[in-house]
């Protein structure tokens, strides 16, 4: 057995190994990760803040929220009930909340009644401190008032209404929803009849009923997603049969995740199929033989399979973003095989597999090295998904390259039957023309022209580091979500305060200082409201101060108090009870635990994070934020308070890395030059790099002219333009006597690469599409100016 055969068998063993691993990994399951949040790196210096972000995301992530709307309130209620019953028939939902249980006002207010002499609303506290309270008036109002709002205590328990005022001051209500018929309801006035009555122009009052459903599994689980979508569709169809005018609004991580997955799967199919078909068509067009097609497929197939196996082995799963990108890698992985085919074609009758391989080997290896450098740069990126893409590409390209060395010589033994002259007539003509007309001088002019044209474009460059680059928001879902937010008042949970302290009480003390500052901001309209734990449980110091005020201004003169109660007609036992309770409650303190146990904390318990590594922590949730900077500012000098703005932090991170990325490109240029220097030495190495450098320069210019904002992802793509673009110069430089065949190969390579990355530019995810677009423009220009190396080489040769 000769060396060629041994290598082929070695490849076969490797291929079988990869196939085996893939079968094991993908047997009965596909470890596809669709959670886009995992793309986002930890951004917060404080680990508790990161935990809090995670916790809030989990709470929101496991819930689907619906609003069922109808122009009449009764059908709306019935439809919402039918909707939740229908959802409840599916196991994918654990808990569906549509009806609200009737709460006993006594149970709700009990915890505060027990500690009433430790509590005062802010307004009452300042009134008492200034001695401005007319107790007799307050007693009269409590007794005579024709209207009372919300939860109120009986005059026997709260004769002056101080505890009523405290309860009314609780920031309990952060939603615009109201109980109606035992369901949570909100109303809007709008034009109705999208479904059945398009002629209606009159605005009507729409009743929206709130339904919330908790998922049994992860919102990112494929099966959970499918079951949720099906269950919702069934439920919606059911209620629309009876009430055609009903509209169902939905929001929840599960819907976004499902759309993201569906989009990604469609894109993988589109890019994969497009790349493959295009590649095969181009290969056939040039080589007119089935053999290169089959071998090309084997090379790419082995590369992609090995990449899949390695990625899943290393990460335990593969992110859908990696998969979408992987599909576009097909166009690049085929390049090494194409060079081999081109050499085969160019050699004509003189073909001999071993020597042919030997001749192209250095070029292929240098080309692989530069590409690997480009992709390795990705693995340094702080984004988990980008490092995964880097690994995928390194393994995929490496394996495709290996296939050329191990497998292709065995199967491409016979010389090409096609007349080499005829096959490469087109490139040959172009080559002759280039060599005749494009002198060194012309090259300088072209280079200077590209630079001059680029510069005004650079001046128009601007950047966009917004997090929407990473998160695709389908318009329909996004509009439903914003309508739900508007109607229900459900806030955005990515901006909040983290309050910390060594003890639980220190958390409360710190939070009270924050609350005081936020009250001022609310007055200026910078936020609409604020939910913090100290509004429900004041710190021990505040409770003691409140008690002192009660003692000094209410219970100071028991005789006077008795007389006042007496003349108002209160029963004797009521009077005695008030005074006794006040005395008995001396020294008692309302604790966070008391509050957590009470039903009144049901909707706000999540504010308390409890014990952490540093002590204790709580969340503070501002609502209706109009001025984010003011929130950051007020938290800056407060002890134990961190303002967390996840979206803002990610944008900040994207910005930092974009700026650093520009430096990385310079470093990478030096590295690539180093690799080229090993083979080509000083000036020639520079000549080989020049077309790519010009391409990068013009790509920036084009982005400027077209007003496409720059982001980290463009910069990352430019690193690949550097790695991939240089390949074409290398292949041409290595072409030697078969220059025309090399040029044909380069065009073919570029064609497949541009096709793949061009398709990537259509991705619905902006990060990927700007990645693809950058590669399309950059690699396209690099290919067009690559023949420059021939001009400089021809004289040298």
């Amino acid at each position, binding site marked *: 057995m000769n060396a060629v055969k041994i290598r082929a068998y070695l490849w076969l063993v490797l291929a079988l190994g990869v196939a085996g691993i893939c079968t094991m990994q993908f047997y009965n399951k596909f470890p596809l990760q669709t959670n886009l949040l995992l793309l986002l790196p930890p951004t917060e210096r404080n680990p508790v803040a990161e935990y809090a972000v995670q916790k809030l995301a989990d709470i929101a992530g496991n819930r689907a929220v619906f609003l069922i709307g109808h122009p*009449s*309130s*009764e059908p709306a209620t019935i439809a919402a009930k039918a909707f939740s019953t229908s959802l409840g028939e599916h196991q994918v939902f654990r808990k569906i909340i549509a009806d*609200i249980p*009737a*709460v*006993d*006002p006594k149970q709700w207010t009990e915890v505060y009644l027990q500690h009433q002499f430790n509590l005062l609303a802010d307004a009452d506290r300042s009134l008492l401190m200034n001695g401005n309270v007319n107790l007799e008036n307050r007693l*009269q*109002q409590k*007794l*005579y008032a*024709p*209207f*009372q*709002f*919300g939860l*109120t205590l*009986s*005059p*026997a328990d709260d004769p002056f209404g101080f505890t009523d005022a405290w309860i009314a001051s609780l920031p*309990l*209500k952060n939603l*615009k929803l*109201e*109980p*109606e*018929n*035992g369901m949570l309801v909100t*109303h809007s006035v709008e034009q109705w009849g999208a479904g059945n009555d398009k002629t209606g122009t009159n605005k009507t009052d729409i009743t929206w009923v709130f339904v919330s459903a908790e998922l049994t599994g992860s919102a990112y689980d494929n099966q959970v997603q499918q079951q949720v979508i099906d269950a919702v569709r069934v439920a919606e169809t059911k209620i629309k049969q009876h009430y055609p005018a009903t509209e169902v609004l939905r929001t929840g991580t599960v819907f976004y995740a499902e759309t993201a997955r569906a989009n990604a799967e469609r894109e993988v199919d589109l890019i994969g199929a497009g790349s493959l078909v295009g590649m095969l068509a181009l290969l056939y067009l040039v080589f007119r033989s089935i053999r290169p097609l089959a071998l090309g497929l084997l090379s790419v197939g082995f590369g992609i399979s090995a990449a899949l196996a390695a990625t899943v082995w290393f990460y335990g799963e593969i992110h859908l973003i990696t998969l979408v990108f992987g599909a576009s890698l097909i166009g690049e992985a085929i390049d090494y095989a194409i060079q081999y085919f081109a050499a085969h074609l160019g050699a004509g009758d003189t073909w001999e597999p071993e020597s042919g391989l030997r001749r192209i080997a250095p070029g292929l290896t240098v080309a692989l090295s530069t590409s690997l450098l480009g992709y390795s740069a990705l693995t340094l990126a702080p984004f988990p998904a980008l490092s995964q893409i880097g690994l995928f590409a390194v393994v995929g390209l490496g394996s495709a390259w290996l296939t050329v060395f191990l497998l292709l010589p065995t199967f491409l033994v016979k010389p090409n039957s096609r007349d080499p002259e005829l096959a490469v007539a087109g490139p040959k003509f172009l080559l002759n023309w280039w060599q005749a007309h494009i002198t060194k001088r012309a090259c300088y002019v072209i280079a200077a022209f590209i630079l001059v044209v680029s510069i005004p474009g650079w001046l128009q460059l601007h950047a966009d580091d917004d997090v929407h680059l990473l998160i695709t928001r389908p318009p329909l879902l996004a509009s439903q979500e914003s309508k739900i937010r508007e109607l229900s008042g459900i806030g955005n949970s990515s901006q909040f305060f983290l309050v910390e302290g060594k003890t639980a009480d220190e958390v409360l003390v710190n939070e009270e200082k924050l609350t005081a500052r936020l009250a001022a901001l609310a007055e200026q309209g910078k936020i609409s409201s604020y939910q913090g734990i100290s509004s429900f449980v004041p710190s021990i110091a505040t409770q003691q101060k409140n008690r002192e005020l009660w003692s000094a201004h209410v219970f100071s003169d028991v005789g006077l108090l008795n007389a006042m109660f007496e003349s*108002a*007609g*209160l*029963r004797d036992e*009521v009077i005695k009870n008030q005074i006794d309770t006040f005395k008995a409650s001396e020294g008692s303190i309302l604790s966070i635990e008391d509050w957590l146990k009470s039903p009144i904390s049901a909707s706000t318990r999540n504010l308390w994070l409890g014990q952490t590594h540093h002590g204790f922590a709580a969340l503070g949730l501002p609502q209706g934020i109009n001025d984010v900077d003011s929130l950051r500012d007020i938290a800056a000098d407060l002890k134990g308070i961190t303002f967390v703005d996840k979206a803002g932090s990610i944008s900040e991170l994207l910005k930092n890395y974009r700026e650093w990325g520009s430096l990385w490109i310079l470093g990478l240029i030096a590295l690539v030059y180093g690799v080229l220097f090993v083979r080509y030495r000083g000036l020639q190495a520079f000549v080989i790099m020049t077309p790519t450098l010009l391409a990068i320069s013009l790509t920036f210019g084009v982005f400027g002219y077209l007003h496409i904002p720059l982001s980290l992802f463009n910069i990352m793509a430019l690193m690949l333009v550097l790695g991939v673009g240089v390949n074409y110069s290398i292949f041409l430089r290595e072409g030697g006597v078969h220059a025309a065949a090399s040029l044909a190969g380069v065009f073919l390579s570029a064609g497949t690469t541009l096709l793949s990355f061009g398709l990537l530019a259509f991705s619905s995810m902006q990060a990927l599409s700007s990645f693809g677009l950058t590669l399309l423009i950059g690699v396209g220009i690099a290919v067009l100016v690559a023949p420059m190396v021939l001009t400089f080489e021809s004289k040298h040769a």
Partner: protein
Amino acid sequence: MQRKIITLALALLTVVFSSTAVSAAEVDLLNKIGHKIEQHAVIRAEFTQTKQMQALKRPLITTGKLTYSRSYGVLWQILQPYNISYVLGEDKIIEIDANGLRKERSFRDVPGLAQVGRVFRAILGANVSALNTYFEVTAQGDTDKWKLALIPRQQQLLKSLSLIELSGGQFVETIIITEASGDTATLRFRKTLGATDLIDTELQLFSTPTASLKTTP
């Protein structure tokens, strides 16, 4: 709690009820009562409210005036034992004390208030299904002398309010509210008259004349 406002609204207007739970004769009666009251743009009355509370040795008695306007809402003026007024508007409640000092609460800020406001508007717009959403309604008598009983449908409301009884002839004459705790409030209306327009002093209290109010101490 909001029940008192609901009651008030009922008291002033009654309603064009329509309900599946109500017999045809009852529906007819309800419609007639509704129409009768609906024809007046403005209604004025004097009231006496008697509250029986367990915490008190003797009943509390309040007297005052009440003005209903189809376009502005309700003005509830307590004259005895002290002077205080309430305006129930389209989207807020205004409290005006003896010195003319106004305290506004918008429906958005107070839980439950918007709901009340909606019942209120539903009544004004003769939205027949609205009141039935909140109460189980039974009617007795004829258009000259009728009696209605309202029982809250919502479990939540039932926890604090057991029953509202209305009776009257041409206008509402009596309202009795029984709370779950056993406390009761009885409202009696006298000298009820229909009119077409509000007078200036009433208008001033209704519409938010910020400028004129700022001058009052």
